[in-house]
């Protein structure tokens, strides 16, 4: 896909060859999804038909506090929208990014600055430079994966739609 457009997609096939495995580890993704409370979504659209809105709406329904980061909006999903990560006046656990890859290094630097614990880049958003900045700052990094899909796979009801969660378990939940 075109790398210099903002990520409109929730779940496009990404660029698997260029993404190191450690940025897509099941264990890491599940830990982030299970431990997070507050998720800032950079590039969250106010349009109900955009993938970022689907993700934000879904995560909000499942109890996460969503913090929109979009300088063009004042409120999305009933939450105050901030122009940047550094403008958010309270702690953020995860920074979820729906922006073009070239915007990621600056976002990663801000994520480090505000003390976030994880940087999550959505499908099609691949930035090794941004990942390096975040990792140096002590953040977990996930790349080219969808936060909604990973939640639905492990904790949600994606299996009700005949989608392949990959989950095999003999344990009663």
């Amino acid at each position: 896909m075109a790398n210099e457009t903002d990520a409109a997609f929730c779940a496009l096939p990404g660029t698997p060859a260029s993404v190191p495995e450690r940025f897509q580890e099941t264990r890491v993704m599940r830990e982030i999804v299970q431990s997070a409370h507050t998720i800032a979504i950079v590039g969250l659209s106010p349009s109900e038909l955009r993938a970022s809105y689907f993700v934000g709406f879904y995560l909000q329904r499942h109890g996460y506090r969503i913090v929109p980061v979009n300088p063009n909006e004042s409120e999305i999903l009933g939450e105050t929208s901030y122009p940047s990560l550094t403008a958010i006046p309270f702690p953020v656990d995860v920074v979820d990014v729906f922006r073009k890859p070239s915007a990621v290094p600056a976002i990663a630097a801000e994520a480090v600055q505000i003390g976030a614990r994880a940087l999550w880049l959505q499908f099609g958003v691949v930035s090794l430079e941004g990942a390096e900045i975040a990792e140096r700052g002590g953040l977990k990094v996930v790349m080219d994966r969808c936060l909604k899909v990973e939640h639905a796979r492990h904790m949600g009801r994606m299996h009700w739609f005949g989608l392949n969660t990959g989950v095999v378990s003999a344990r009663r939940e």
Partner: protein
Amino acid sequence: MNGHAEHEFDGQARTFGFETRAVHAGQRPDPYTGASALPIFQTSAFVFEDTDSAAAYFNLQEYGNIYSRIMNPTVAAFEERIASLEGGAGAVAFSSGLAAQLAAFYTLLQPGDHIVASQAIYGGSIAQFKHVFGRLSVDVTLVNPDEASAWEAAIRPTTKALFGETIGNPSGNILDIRTVAGIAHAHGIPLIVDNTFATPYLCRPIEWGADIVVHSATKFIDGHGTSIGGVVVDAGGFDWGNGRFPGIAEPSEEYHGLAFHETFGVYGYLMKLRAETLRDLGAALAPFNAFLYTLGLETLPVRMERHVRNAEGVARFLAAHPMVERVRYAGLPGNPYYTLAQQYVPRGAGSVFAFDLKGDRNTGQRFIEGLSLWRHLANVGDTKSLVIHPASTTHRQLGDAELAASGVAPGTVRLSVGLESLDDLTWDLERGLAAARAGTAGRAAAPALEEKEGERTHG
């Protein structure tokens, strides 16, 4: 891909094998009751938690059960299991194999579009392409699947998909999936493969480049001849946003302008297949049938091993018999498809194949009547061994010239080799062949074929 997510147990990552997924994928212990076997959710509809949830389900913003024409948890367990075994992103089940095939195409076609299909496929599929697709103003070109140039030459600007069967019915031809997928992708269109005869145990077309896999689940997935059903599996890798598929990429009138490809990406085709095609065509799979299919899949690996072992034994027996003109089994050395079979179905070329008796239509009929263990019926993929004589049943309306054009000889017999003792199967075949030979030697002719009712049905 999303197919084989690794799992972490006590700190160790693991990707489970085919046999493990055949037993477990898609079905976790029921969280509410602890039931270990798959519960049959025999319900038409599902109660909403509240009005907000109902709205989110209808808007596809949340994975929620609404109505069993669109989704059902028992059916979903089957869908996820077959998706896992085929290596796809997901699956949608239908009330028959032909319904699944129609739905797979309906989701990506518009009036004026065109598809290219192998001519060496099930006659019922060809009938659907000619008659149903014709009425929907979709044009179909049938090609010799063995010639790459024929596929290439048939593609037009309006072509939206290529279609073939892994193992062709009834001639046993093997599709060169990688080559045909390459041609499709060079033109920005998907390859759809019917994997009914091979099953994912013998061949996984997605691993060779196929984009969508369809099944008649009635056959080896069921495995016991109990239930009619079908399923569509999507690899999740095709770029529907390449400009040729406005039905998937452009805003949908049915969902307030939702663009399935943009919003759901990998799952865009599957979501449209379910939320629009299945919902609107209405060919939903019954939960009880899905329950039987999940049971069938649990034993698929062990059944298919025995199916192909028996099929190879029967094929060798027939090839050595003086009453047999030829055996069309790709697993036999010397078969024109032997090399392709070694590549695509190395564990065995399935257990459905045809052979040609020396003689005419009456010879075939006497053969059938001389059998007592093989069941004479129009289906395949059962534990029981099955037999049919196309010239007096599925193809009986055709004259000899038309028969020949469809690759069926007057003495062609199709077998579906089951799981009985191999010695018993060849013992019974020997009796049938003796009966066929006795007639050839001048016994009173069997009743005229024309006096019997027969329709072009299925199988």
